């Protein structure tokens, strides 16, 4: 689960990591009030300028015009109304962008150096891994591709925790001057404690800055929480912003269906994530284009299959549907029954190609024969893909 920047900063601040002072707003009127509140917080004299930052679940906001500056309450309101209520398109969002429903008014900081600091998991070795680079404030993927040696990597023993010597090593890699040593120790220690206590899968501070007045500060932050760990953190789980999620994906997720929207016009209903990915792949190989990835789950029943159909049909681009089921625990006759229920209750018009294999396959095929519905059964997956691509491009 992704957090917004303002949530990430709020969370990091709890673990002693210094962040800029900021106030959020959801309307231009709130933004004007937020400007005044922030000005008081910063004990600013007459002139005071702040950033007005669009809050969306994607990076690249600065270049995309999602970070503006305001130097009066009226201007804060105007900048907020420029951003709020519209989608913001960045290089990470896709062409449709993500809706801006909140802005963060953030104090402007005099920066002398921009650094990169992150904590993630190295999957293969199963170690928390600190990534640090002197090249902060830029796209770290580009740094990794061009100059991988510019990124220091420090794996942590989860049993011992983050040791002081490791923090000194990262400090050296980042060339953080000695007077800032204690502040850096507290910051990195805080990041590690936050990561382990909140079941985070990524904490990324980009940039971590040295300020003109000799402080360390997390100027921007990204936090991703492990979905599997959310049950331990109900307070953080409540921070979920469903407005940033694909509406069909969200609806599917609530009933235990994994759904990812794709660009094509062939709807897919599959049991199992690996088989669902492979089904998308074989449609592409056959010259077609899948509209979605959908894993109905391993032990799904008639009801679940019916719901999955409703989800696929919510996408108006779908011209044909491929159902690919390998019955292990799931029985093919249940799938067939769900299919019949769905086509009747939802008045499905798109043609459906069904490939069933495994448990109770004969019974499943029998249920689907001679129904008068636009359903064809296929012998194997390759045959099914060919047929559904033919139907979708007809």
């Amino acid at each position, binding site marked *: 689960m992704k957090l917004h920047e303002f949530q990430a900063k709020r969370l990091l601040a709890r673990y002693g990591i210094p962040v800029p002072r900021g106030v959020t707003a959801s309307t231009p009127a709130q933004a004007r009030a937020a400007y005044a509140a922030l000005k008081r917080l910063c004990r600013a004299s007459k002139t005071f300028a702040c950033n007005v930052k669009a809050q969306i679940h994607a990076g690249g906001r600065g270049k995309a015009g999602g970070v503006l500056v305001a130097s009066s309450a009226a201007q804060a309101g105007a900048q907020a109304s420029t951003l709020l209520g519209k989608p913001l398109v960045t290089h*990470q969002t896709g062409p449709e962008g993500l809706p801006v429903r909140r802005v963060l008014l953030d104090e402007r900081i005099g920066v002398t150096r921009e650094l990169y600091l992150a904590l993630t*998991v190295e*999957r*293969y070795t*199963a*170690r*928390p891994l600190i990534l640090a680079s002197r090249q902060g404030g830029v796209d*770290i*993927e580009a740094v*990794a*591709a061009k100059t991988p040696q510019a990124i220091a990597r420090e794996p942590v*023993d*989860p*049993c011992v925790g983050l040791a002081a010597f490791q923090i000194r090593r990262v400090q050296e890699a980042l060339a953080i001057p000695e007077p800032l040593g204690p502040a850096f120790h507290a910051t990195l220690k805080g990041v590690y404690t936050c990561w*382990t206590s909140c*079941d985070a*899968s990524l904490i990324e501070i980009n940039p971590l800055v040295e300020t003109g007045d000799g402080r360390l500060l997390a100027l921007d932050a990204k936090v991703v929480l*492990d*979905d*599997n*760990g959310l*049950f*331990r953190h109900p307070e953080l789980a409540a921070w979920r912003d469903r407005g940033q999620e694909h509406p069909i994906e969200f609806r599917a997720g609530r009933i235990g269906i*994994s759904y*990812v929207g*794709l660009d094509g016009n062939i709807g897919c209903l*599959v*049991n*199992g*994530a*690996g*088989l*669902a*990915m*492979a*089904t*998308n*792949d*074989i*449609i*592409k*190989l056959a010259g077609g284009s*899948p509209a979605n*990835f959908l*894993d109905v789950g*391993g*032990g799904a029943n008639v009801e679940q299959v019916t719901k999955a159909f409703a989800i696929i049909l919510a996408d108006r681009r779908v011209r044909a549907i491929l159902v690919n089921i*390998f*019955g*292990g*625990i799931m029985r093919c006759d249940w799938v067939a029954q769900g299919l019949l229920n769905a086509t009747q209750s939802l008045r499905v018009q798109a043609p459906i190609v069904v490939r069933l*294999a*495994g*448990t109770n396959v004969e019974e499943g095929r029998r249920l689907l024969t001679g129904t008068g519905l636009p359903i064809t059964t296929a012998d*194997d*997956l*390759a045959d099914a*893909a060919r047929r559904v691509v033919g139907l979708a491009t007809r």
Partner: protein
Amino acid sequence: MSILVTKDTRVVVQGITGQAGAFHTEKMLEYGTKVVAGVTPGKAGATVHGVPVFGSVQRAVEATGADASVIFVPAAFAYDAMLEAIEVKLPLIVTITEGIPAWDLIRVRRYLEGRPTRLIGPNCPGLTAPEACKLGIIPGYIHRRGGIGVLSRSGTLTYDAVWQLSQAGLGQSTCVGIGGDAVLGSSFTGLLRLFQDDPETEAIVLIGEIGGTEEEEAAAVIKAHVTKPTFAFIAGRMAPKEKRMGHAGAIVSGGRGTAAEKMETLAAAGVTVIDSPAAIGQTVKQTLLRRGVLQK
């Protein structure tokens, strides 16, 4: 021989009184697996499908000599269940449970270091040595016994691939689902070495997917140590970046972990990379015939 298990493997099921635990205990027994004990804290003395239930893994091992565990306990308790089984030095643990926090696996992996236990999973379908032993939830009927070793990060896609192999007349020595999570107990690499050393295994089929570096690590081991014909299919070529495709571990992140990258690395290591998920059985068969590993 199979790898990891034999027909004499004695199995304890942790979480045997739960719905999934009880259901699959019955299926494992039907397959001929020696399920000798179950464990559910607080339910010692019960029986499930004739299998005695104990309150702890230690009691179960003392009473029955179990030497492998299958874990079905809910995600919130799986961490403790794994530690308990590792602590009594069971040689093999297979964790079926889905949805375990990655932080729990990070700590379990650390606890495993220097201990004699091998952990398979979590979020995996388990493993089958056809006609000998089945640990987990892979449907038994898809298998036949033979010389193909199968390793996979997936569930139903594995069943499909195994079914294709069986239909093509190619039996399996052992099929292992290593799991779909980001942090796993066992990677492809260690198991590849076991298949290489197993005299019954003649060829290896690897089913990977997007995300992480499992396949890249596997390619390095294959290049250095595996002389048997090796095949791979990688799922997720159509997957968009930064999107989790069902499995917790199936995500192309920071531009890394794409299917194309993995296929290229495996091909460069001498692996026959299969394009279509429907062509796994036939490709393996035709290639082995051509190389004379199989006789007509």
